């Protein structure tokens, strides 16, 4: 950990300006990821702006019937909110599937979205990593690939975004509200927040320097049934090998509408538009579900260590759709 200075933010605009004013400055809130990375010398901020006490810890009903979730709402509080549990159960399920109780008590909504990959090669400073040291190469590809992605990856990086919460939010059409250093605000779809690695894996989001997430807004709860299913090696405190968030209207006769998002397989929470389209257009039942998964997996990365994720995704989607289209 290199020496750094620290300040406690006094206001939104001041916080954004403080970070925008120094290229080596970073926001810190729960710190569950950033501090680990600082200890390992992977994040090396020279200045930290603590935004954890900013008045962004509320959950409010929006005028349109949706929900506005403050950036500083703790994961455990969000999961326990009765409005979330009743109207957005897929989000509550995803939150509770993430990390551990202790981490959820500390981790915040915005911090969860902006957490960095857990690729073990990213986490080892002795290994080449284009995300950590741009241009140094990727030592994960060709190595232990089990945790790597199959969709949206590039030859420069195949690391996945580790969040569960964000996958559910992607299925719920969440939007991100931000404040910039000049006090300007903007709103962007969650799908626009994270960038695919391409040739620049170190650039992970569309946020400008100092631009701070202030809230996540959820549109009114979609009709249909919701489910989050996370598949992992250990029953708790393990990242997803594959996860599926579904919001579905349908039954044995067919699926009328579907919003699907996948986790554990891509550099960002993966909204599965191709699968959604195939699902509503295709035949009813399992054959159609499988075709929908295949539509999303067309062109997915292959390899001896990751091929299982293709089948695992198909089967997990089948499970989620079985559960959400079951009569009654």
């Amino acid at each position, binding site marked *: 950990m290199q020496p750094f200075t620290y300040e406690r933010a006094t206001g939104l605009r001041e916080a954004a300006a403080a970070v925008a004013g120094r290229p080596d400055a970073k926001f810190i809130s729960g710190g569950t990821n950033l501090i680990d990375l600082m200890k390992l010398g992977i994040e090396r901020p020279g200045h930290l702006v603590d935004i954890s006490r900013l008045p962004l810890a509320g959950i409010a009903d929006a005028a349109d019937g949706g929900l506005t979730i403050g950036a500083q709402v703790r994961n455990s509080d969000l999961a326990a909110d009765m409005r979330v549990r009743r109207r957005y159960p897929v989000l509550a399920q995803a939150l509770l599937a993430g990390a551990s109780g202790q981490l959820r008590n500390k981790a915040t909504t915005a911090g969860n979205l902006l957490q960095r990959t857990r690729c073990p090669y990213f986490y080892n400073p002795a290994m080449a990593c284009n995300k950590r040291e741009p241009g140094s190469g990727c030592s994960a590809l060709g190595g232990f690939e089990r945790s790597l992605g199959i969709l949206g990856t590039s030859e420069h990086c195949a690391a996945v975004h580790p969040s569960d919460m964000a996958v559910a939010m992607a299925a719920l059409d969440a939007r991100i509200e931000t404040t910039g250093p000049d006090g300007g605000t903007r709103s962007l779809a969650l799908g626009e927040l994270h960038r695919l690695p391409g040739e620049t894996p170190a650039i992970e989001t569309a946020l400008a320097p100092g631009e701070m997430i202030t809230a996540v807004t959820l549109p009114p709860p979609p009709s249909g049934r919701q489910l989050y299913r996370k598949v992992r090696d250990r029953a708790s405190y393990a990242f997803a090998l594959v996860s599926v968030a579904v919001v579905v209207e349908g039954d044995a006769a067919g699926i009328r509408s579907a919003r699907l998002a996948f986790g554990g397989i891509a550099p960002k929470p993966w909204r599965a538009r191709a699968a959604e389209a195939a699902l509503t257009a295709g035949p009813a039942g399992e054959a159609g579900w499988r075709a929908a998964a295949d539509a999303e997996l067309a062109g997915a990365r292959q390899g001896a260590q990751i091929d299982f994720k293709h*089948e695992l995704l198909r089967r997990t989607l089948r499970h989620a759709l079985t559960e959400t289209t079951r009569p009654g």
Partner: protein
Amino acid sequence: MEKHIVQGRDTASAGVIGRPLDRSDGPQKVRGLATYGHEHVPERRPAHGYILGAGIARGVLTAIDTAAAEAAPGVIHVMTHRNAPAQPAFGGPTVPEVPQVFTRPRPVLAGDTVHYHDQPVALVVAESFEEARAAAGLIRCTYRREPGSFSLHGGLANAYRPERANAGMATDSVIGDLDAAMASAAVTLDSTYETAFGSHNPLEPHAAVAEWQGDRLTLYTATQTLANVRAGLAATLRIPADNIRVISPFIGGGFGAKLIVHAETVLAALAARAIGRPVKVALTRQQMFANAGHRPAMVQRMRIAAGRDGRLTGFGHDVIASTARIEEFAEQAAATGRALYAAPNRRTTHRLVRLDTHRGEWMRAPGEAPGLIAIECAMDELAEKLGLDPVELRVLNEPARDPERSVPFSTRNLVACLREGAKRFGWDDLPRRPGSRREGRKLIGYGMAAAIRANYLGATSVRVSLDARGMVSVQTDMTDIGTGTYTILGQVAAERLGVPVSAIRVELGDSDLPRSAGSGGSWGATSTATALHNACAALRNKLLTAARDHERSPLRGLDLGAARLERAALIVNRRSEPLSRLVAAIAPGGLSAEGSAQRGETYTAFSQHAYGAHFAEVSVDLDTGEPRLRRMLGVFAAGKLLNSKTARSQMIGGMIWGVGAALTEETVLDPRHGHFVNHDLGDYHVPCHVDVPNVEAVFLDEHDDKANPFGAKGIGELGNCGASAAVANAVYNATGIRVRSLPITLDKLLPGLPVA
């Protein structure tokens, strides 16, 4: 210097051995008053060392630029191979005599050669840990890489035969003609099983605080065996062992990873001498994976020949394990079956593949844990081939004498464990046909396996003293690595001296105290308790002699042949003399005696093992393949228990280790770079609570009169012997998919699961 004494809290004395007393050190631990290695406060203010590890696995460190680190804030000293004090050469991969593995020098920063990834290449010493770590990040290393070997499978063709297996066990054993038995048997099994690298991951990382006073060194550390650390460090520093005092009163888990001296200890001692100030060094969690030992990866071939009746005619176990080019470790997996089942034709072998990693170490149940995975999965496969119940197959092949040594067993209650376990688990009513039981979208399966673990004794001395207030102190350099040593020694002394447990103070973990065999090989409790038993007998004799002869003794001249020590008094005929008053009269300075334990004739004249039987129920998700434990029962016969609560805890902990090895735990070696890829507790999957529901352990009554005066056997490792195989066999029973490569992760099951 702070004293670390744990006083008992129970008022019982008579009959207290075996009772489920709470840990006497529990309150200290939960209140944060138990001082662990890195927490010790030396007399002068310590500096903090941080180890920088090599970024390559094999090659030469051609340049190391420490200028920026030396100029960094708070930095006191940067030690590399260029300025490290001279140390003896490490020597070859093997040592002439078995015990020398614990006493050989283990030099650090000894040259520019890199033997394994994350090998220490520098130590930065600074005023604070954070400053040392930050400065270490400023060191620039330049390497010349050399190709290395990082794949067990890649080296199978070049496996070599070691001179001996761990602990001096025979490399091979051959009895009869296995090949002929295989050729002529009605039923044969020939299966190969693979087990992964494993990492101990004690909660407390390796740590050392070194402080010199002249040419004498005080070392606070976390070790299972003080004598080993003392000897290994003395050899490395080239000073007499007597000049080193090792203090290690509380240890946050060892599991075999804290048996030898490691780099952090040597570096702390070297740095403290170099800067003339105490130095603290700890391994980080990440550094432990490369620098604090691992369980070797293995490929194990089982060949079993049997008649139609299920009786074995041949038993073959060929193990190929990884070892390190720099230092050999031949984990004795193939020795496991040498005493397990009867079969006239037998062959067990160990071969090794050299890899460019750091050495493997003794990880809880070395030998048995991986060995029983192969043996007990093979027996499960054989039972199915024979159409026999797996329990019955094992009962059928129960030997009357040790099948390879031709000596009698001391006590052997494997069959009783199998029967009792089957009864308690409801085994006979469970479906045997694989893949035949479903609950919703879960496949449910059941498996069992036998457990065997050798019983050892290590030379140990204990001092016991009685003071004029009637307080007893027990002193030895034995350790309590979380197992309950403090508690059981209090129970033994209380019962043998007839005083309440609350009058016993136990002092451990200081090399100034009488030397013990330490905690390792499951021998700590029985060795130390035996020495304490003898010490108590010697103290009793001293007390009685003084009571009879001392001129101020109220019992002077009495015939004390029938005297008893009870209720904190010496009772003879109808007279009862409180110990405090008696000692105050006859030995105001107190009385003290030592006792020792060493291997006797029965140690070799009998085949001594503890036994058990594991039964497991698992679910496998039909959609995702996720295997999860649902319940597990272990039934064990391990002689007399010294404390049934700490014993049960150890068994449950061991069983959970077995679950981890079966389903989740694997340290991945990158075959290109030679580093352990997953090196923290987020990626190395030790089971969480939710992974291990309903794990229960029970003991059968047993007394092994060949083992020691208590009839007790070692139990620290018995719990994870066979546990993995029971889980693996349950996964097979659930799915009909036989995965022979552990851990059984869902990707290995997925291809075999039904599509719908």
